[in-house]
């Protein structure tokens, strides 16, 4: 008989390396027509990082993301970067790009202040214009300002910056210190069916609420959450590398190493918590790794809710769940006085 259960799990997760320096450098060059090129040493690993980074650069320069071209992943042309690891790209590379873009923007402000006859401190970059704060009608198109910077003033708007989260080393005896710049938080709830005759677990839906600071691109955040739930599902129910007694893997192929497919995917209801972190670029933190962290516990807690057995060793395969159900029944029968 199928029994329904629900389980919940919360988590916290840090952004960037543990104490160790993990800097990112960035260069932003504003072209003669007001579009821009960003140089970064990070690499697109499929998560959409370059999209997020172009949105950060665009926001800082007051132009649209499609005005930005990102050059990445080349040690000859790009500044040093610690790379696509530790959920650090948006937060750390993003901060470096925001700072580099602000530097290039300052050059535009210098030029525009002469054109508009105001102090640079009164200017802002918005909607493809450099405009006076509070008086958007008094403005110059960013393309005109950029061209003038290049060809009249002789000050090409180029900014470069690097950023590394401030940390305090951990005391070797007690581990006390400030290992990370910031943390993100999340809660996931799973609803599942357990077949108490076969032990098979079917995950019906997962509600995933994640704090990632400002969502630079909510669509990509949702993509990460769905991907994370998928990985968490495999971790919870299916995936395990098996070794023989001589330390050799028994299932090193996708036939015998079972992992979820799209057909195993539950409905994912993702939610982005309203949040702003003042240390991140435009308030952003991270979402990459954390999206997988609470899934397994939410699922195994739901298994307990459904059939009353506690799975303490992953993965919760049908065999393991059934064995636990049988052991529980045997225990209950023993307790009935003869």
């Amino acid at each position, binding site marked *: 008989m199928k029994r329904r259960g629900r389980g919940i799990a919360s988590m916290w997760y840090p952004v960037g390396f543990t104490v160790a320096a993990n800097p990112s450098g960035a260069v932003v060059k504003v072209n003669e027509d007001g579009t821009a090129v960003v140089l970064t040493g990070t690499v697109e690993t499929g998560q959409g990082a370059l999209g997020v980074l172009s949105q950060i650069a665009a926001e800082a320069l007051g132009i649209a993301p499609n005005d930005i071209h990102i050059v990445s992943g080349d040690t000859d042309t790009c500044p040093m970067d610690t790379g696509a690891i530790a959920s650090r790209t948006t937060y750390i590379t993003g901060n470096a790009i925001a700072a580099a873009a602000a530097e290039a923007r300052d050059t535009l402000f210098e030029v525009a202040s002469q054109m508009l006859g105001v102090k640079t401190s009164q200017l802002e970059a918005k909607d493809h214009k450099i405009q006076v704060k509070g008086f958007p009608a008094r403005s110059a198109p960013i393309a005109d300002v950029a061209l003038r910077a290049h060809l009249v003033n002789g000050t090409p708007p180029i900014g470069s910056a690097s950023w590394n989260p401030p940390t305090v080393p951990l005391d070797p005896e007690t581990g006390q210190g*400030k290992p990370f710049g910031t943390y993100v938080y999340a809660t996931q709830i799973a609803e599942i069916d357990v077949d108490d005759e076969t032990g098979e677990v079917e995950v019906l839906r997962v509600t995933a609420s994640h704090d990632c600071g400002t969502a630079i691109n909510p669509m990509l955040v949702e993509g990460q959450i769905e991907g994370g739930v998928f990985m968490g599902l495999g971790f919870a129910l299916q995936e395990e590398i098996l070794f023989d007694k001589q330390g050799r893997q028994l299932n090193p192929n996708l036939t015998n190493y079972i992992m979820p497919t799209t057909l195993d995917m539950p409905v994912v209801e993702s939610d982005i918590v309203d949040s702003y972190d003042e240390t991140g670029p435009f308030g952003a933190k991270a979402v990459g790794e954390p999206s997988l962290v609470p899934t397994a516990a939410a699922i195994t*807690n739901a298994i307990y809710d459904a059939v009353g057995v506690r799975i303490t060793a992953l993965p919760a395969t049908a065999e393991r769940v059934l064995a636990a159900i049988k052991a529980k029944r045997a225990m209950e029968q023993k307790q009935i006085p003869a």
Partner: protein
Amino acid sequence: MADDVMERDVSVLEKERVAPVETLRRSDEALRLPAVAPPTALPLEPPLVPQVGEQTRAVGLRAQRPDSRNHGLGLTRYIDDIALPGMLFAKIKRAGVASARIVRIDTSKAEAMPGVKAVLVGSEIPVNSFGPSLQDQPLLAAPIVRHAGDGVAAVAAVTEQIAEAAIDAIEVEYEPLPGVYDAIEALKPDSHKVHGGDTNVYASKIIKRGDVEKGFAQAYRIYEGRYYTPGIEHAPMEPFTSIADWDANGRLTVYASIGRITLARCDMSRTLGIPISRIRVIGTVVGGNFGGKNEIRHEPVLALLAKKAGRPVKGRFTRVEEFVASTIRHAFTMDYKTGVTKDGRLIARQVRMVLDGGAYCSFSETTLGKACILSTGPYEIPNSLAEGYVVYTNKTTAGSMRGFGAPQVCFAYESQMDEIARDLGIDPIEIRVRNMFREGSISSTGQVLHSVKVKESLENAVKKFGWEARS
């Protein structure tokens, strides 16, 4: 069975003679027929990067990714779509035994094979060790093999099939050594020491706050549990692939699907003994990373083969190699002991964890550190003590993988939280709210936390799910 999987498939050409559809499909793959996307008129109209609005703000937009059209049309060039003129193909011979000393390697038959352009063994590598924290991992084992996926020799040939046949022709004689295949076993004083010395423990961590003994003494109830999570594989769609190419000035260009090109360049400089300025690393679009592509793997071997052969060399892991010769997620054994008050407040938690590090360090130190720090969960616990150890075993190397230890400890602390809530008869939502971090809470390392949103995430999830308290 293990013997079977460690050996490569039957020769493709042999199989083709019988040629059922399935083997034909596989032979296509092996013969490297390029997968060509249907012709597309370029540039596309409307423009390749769609307009997402002229008005800022740019932040918060559900903007299309700049690479989405290329992905959607199958036009993205991954590393396997890159072929340089005259490029050779490399294969690495895997040990297939987990703990042994190489007594003799005979490469003469392989070298004599037509089409074989270069053969390499570990003793020819200038600095045959790498690793992000401890440089304990050889590029090709020499002379000690510490896990079954260790490479022992490499070949570059004009086709992948010839390279495959050539590594089969390399004869290796092993002297078996004792081994240790379980993390708890490896802690014992009389266990085999994977890297010599007097212990297999190569990193440990303590995170201590308050006084756990005092906390346990004050507790209304104490809960204890052991939790285990296994080693798992990243399983990216794209296996490790790199190309090494030298120019006439002795400058090396490496194309690699790797997420950390800055570190990769340093590691290549160190292992090859050439200045950083003579190396260019081009990170191609990565076809799935999940933490598995954060360090070099075979790139210096390819570079040395390319140098010997005088031609560019591409190396591409098979799916089996992706499992046995890359890194995996650490298997964790975790003992949790938690003291609570009558109203469900966590007042003391002691955690002891042992990580199976496999044969080499890789990102074990980082994984252990994060796991220990995060082991309290997102809860204010005045007294906590986490101790962690990571040990060598003669198994596949464990390294970085999405979450760095966090999914493992979260499974433990949230399983135990559920157990505590049920035992005390407190709603699982309520018990979490009572203990959760708030703005300004102090973490396990004494860090004052800001932008804490765990309670909000819980409230949102409860609302969205439609969680109703049961009486």
